[in-house]
């Protein structure tokens, strides 16, 4: 890679480029950032903080359930705790943290200087942050949601949930979905239009494929829950009757809409996890991923099938038998593409030279945990067993094996893998092994007994149980396991914080990986790549010839970005990207006011929309030439190509 450091730019050009891409400093400047790395760092830290809070709530539940007839937490608070725990982990941690990794690494992995629509991504972050603050402020005001993370009516209707708690849940959904839809659009556009020249579709890194597939799933799945939660708010606020059986409504419609979102959601969380597995496993097996095409097709087919099996969450509702059979079959079939991926990974490791470093440990842990979760998933697809264990701890065990195994294990692997890239420092290998060991043992000790508890009939979402049921010993074991997991996470925090100051300095490519994020310094400069790369193979750093070209000719005095063609990534045109802006923050503030206002009165929507409109106009309105805008009107000759006209220059590489 050393030739990459010898750049065809003069030194003063690089300095100007870095000034152009620098973000404002100081407290006030903090609100103006639009750099994808800066936004993604905040996203990651915020999501991790929500994960910790959600984890504390889980620990409280384990404390309460550790022995029979425990009077530590009453039923009212317990309901709020399990609802807020589930809501936090699904909406404020699992989906956002994966998108945050996408925001940081997708532009780097495709060799771009920026994410597409950087201000939209900043807006997404602020919405996500404010949504979480809104949820936890409500929780502290004894208004935490208490109707379960899927908020089934009629329980969540005004008649049975008269306080604001269910509204808080429904509106938190709106916050997080707006945030994740905005990010999804940015990621899709980045992958389709900002790839480095030469990165044809069959050279896109698998993590980037996973992100783009996930983003499409977000576009089609999130609207369902937004429509449902809006209908719920309308039912509660202005007496519509969507879920009210007495007025021609239907409570089951909620379940259909919710799970049409909710099942794809599982894959929205798992598919990025599988992308992480492909990346890390390839790096530490020291060979190209086996079955690249098969893995990509598996991701795509999983995404399609993921929309066809929501009803298996509703087997206990007495649907027609034909429907149950169809959804059973669909739920079993989706194991096939996942199985193909797992075989490809095994083949990659088998034929490679495995280096077991801390990131790779988590991937090996992923195999063990996720396959167990997958097996109970196949069991739950069968209607008789599903009906038997419905709403028991068996389901709790299953979903934690799938989600923690499928997403959190690869995620911790990714933390160890990419921490050096983000911070420029290495995490401790020794603490990493302790963290993994504690978490792996603690996880199994916590959740494996829940399978047995579920089969013994222990329902989920109960705040206590009598001694005579005989569930005490297994529950105590689960609670001890939770303590071990907490110790592991604590070690990780100590490691992550101390490594910031005292960690070993990271080189540009400490793991010897093959993808483009390792082609730039650790941490990357504001422009990502002083000279953007071009790509000559699937693992560019392993396969590029020594004289692989770099891109020159982008302007250094504005944030100039190279836009390429969708399929073959040939250079198409340049585009000036916006600089730092306060408007995403202000727009998110205005949107937050409207969202919160609207759970109290429908007029909140009307009056609250005005500030949103004003801030959006401020966002859109361009700067004049004196304020730093460019290309003042009138122009002397047209520079934009006619629609359909071939690009002016560039040519193949």
């Amino acid at each position: 890679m050393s030739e990459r450091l010898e750049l065809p730019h003069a030194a003063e050009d690089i300095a100007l480029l870095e000034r152009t891409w620098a973000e404002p400093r100081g407290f006030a400047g903090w609100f103006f950032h639009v750099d994808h790395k800066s936004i993604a760092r905040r996203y990651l830290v915020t999501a991790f903080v929500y994960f910790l809070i959600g984890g504390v709530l889980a620990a409280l539940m384990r404390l309460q359930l550790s022995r029979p007839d425990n009077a530590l937490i009453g039923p009212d608070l317990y309901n709020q705790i399990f609802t807020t725990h589930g809501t936090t982990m699904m909406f404020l941690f699992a989906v956002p943290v994966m998108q945050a990794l996408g925001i940081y690494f997708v532009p780097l992995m495709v060799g771009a200087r920026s994410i597409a629509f950087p201000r939209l991504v900043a807006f997404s972050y602020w919405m996500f942050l404010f949504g979480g603050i809104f949820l936890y402020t409500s929780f502290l005001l004894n208004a935490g949601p208490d109707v379960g993370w899927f908020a089934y009516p009629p329980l969540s209707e005004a008649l049975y949930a008269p306080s604001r708690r269910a509204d808080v849940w429904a509106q938190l959904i709106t916050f997080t979905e707006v945030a994740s839809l905005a990010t999804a659009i940015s990621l899709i556009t980045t992958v389709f239009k900002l790839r480095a020249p030469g990165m044809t579709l069959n050279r896109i890194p698998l993590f980037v494929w996973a992100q783009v597939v996930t983003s499409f799933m977000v576009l089609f799945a999130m609207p369902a829950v937004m429509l449902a939660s809006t209908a719920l708010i309308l039912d509660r606020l202005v007496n519509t009757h969507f879920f009210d059986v007495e007025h021609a409504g239907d409570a089951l419609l909620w379940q259909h809409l919710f799970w049409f979102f909710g099942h794809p959601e599982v894959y929205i969380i798992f598919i990025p996890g599988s992308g992480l597995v492909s990346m890390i496993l390839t790096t530490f097996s020291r060979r190209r991923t086996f079955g690249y095409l098969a893995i990509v097709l598996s991701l795509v087919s999983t995404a399609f099938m993921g929309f066809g099996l929501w009803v298996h969450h509703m087997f206990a509702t007495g649907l027609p038998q034909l429907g149950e059979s169809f959804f059973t079959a669909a739920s079993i079939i989706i194991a096939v593409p996942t199985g193909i991926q797992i075989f490809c990974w095994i083949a990659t490791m088998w034929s490679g030279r495995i280096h077991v470093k801390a990131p790779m440990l988590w991937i090996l842990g992923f195999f063990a945990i996720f396959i167990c979760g997958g097996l109970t998933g196949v069991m739950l697809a069968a209607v008789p067993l599903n009906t038997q264990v419905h709403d028991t701890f068996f389901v709790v065990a299953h979903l934690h094996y799938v989600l923690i195994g499928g997403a959190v294990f690869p995620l911790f692997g990714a933390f160890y893998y990419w921490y050096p890239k983000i911070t420029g420092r290495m995490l401790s290998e020794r603490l990493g092994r302790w963290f993994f060991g504690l978490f792996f043992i603690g996880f199994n000790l916590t959740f494996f007994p829940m399978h047995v508890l579920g089969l013994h009939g222990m329902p989920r979402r109960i705040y206590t149980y009598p001694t005579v049921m005989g569930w005490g010993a297994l529950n105590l074991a689960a609670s001890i396991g939770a303590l071990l997991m907490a110790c592991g996470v604590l070690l990780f925090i100590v490691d992550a914080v101390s490594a910031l100051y005292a960690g070993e300095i990271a080189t540009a490519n400490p793991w010897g990986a093959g993808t483009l994020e390792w082609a730039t310094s650790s941490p990357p400069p504001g422009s990502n790549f002083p000279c953007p790369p071009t790509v000559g193979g699937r693992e560019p750093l392993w396969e590029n010839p020594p004289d692989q070209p770099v891109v020159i000719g982008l302007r250094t005095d504005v944030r100039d970005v190279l836009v390429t063609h969708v399929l073959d990534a040939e250079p198409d045109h340049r585009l000036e990207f916006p600089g730092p802006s306060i408007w995403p923050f202000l727009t998110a503030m205005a949107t937050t006011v409207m969202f919160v206002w609207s759970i109290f009165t429908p007029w909140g929507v009307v009056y609250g929309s005005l500030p949103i409109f004003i801030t959006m106009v401020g966002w859109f309105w361009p700067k004049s030439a004196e304020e730093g805008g460019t290309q003042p009107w009138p122009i002397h000759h047209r520079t934009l190509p006619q629609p359909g006209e071939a690009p002016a220059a560039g040519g193949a590489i």
Partner: protein
Amino acid sequence: MSQPRTLDVGALAPGAFGSRSLMWWGTLGMVLIESTVFALAIASYFYFRTRMPSWPPGGVAPPDLRWGTINTLILLASILPNELAKHAGEHVDLRGVRIWMVVCLLFGLGFNVVRVYEFRHLNVMWDHDAYGSIVWVLLGLHTTHIVTDFLDTAVLTALMFVGPIEEKRFVDVEENAVYWNFVVLAWLPIYGVIYWAPRLM
């Protein structure tokens, strides 16, 4: 250390129209999201239908055809000035853009006003039953679109008059027209469901 070869992109144009532009992909993303919302709302309508022996339930009259049909015609007619604005945008023709965007806004004013009459002739209130709720939500969802599309077109038109105008704003004009077409075309299935489903089923 050898100097790497270079790929000079300095001569490339500073922007492009249509699916080559980033804005087109952003607009496509919005269209996919909103189409999904419309499709799910329509699916919910028919889901309620399957739950009731007659439709609309309880002998409620279907919405009056007159205003909805008039508005459908106005919406469809607005495609013409909209396409002309798009064409002017693609030709970086400031005068044409100004003229046709203003004409579009007049149409927009028209269909927003007629929309008020549509609401008043639905013959059911949202809190009457689930049929009323879903009809109001369907019409309300589309109304949100025509109001916001009118407002953002108005802002863009104002910009094209008072500036600062840059050449790349003409790509915005084009993408704004693409979105306008989506809002018009999305109305057709909703019109069919609100006004004709109760008569034909």
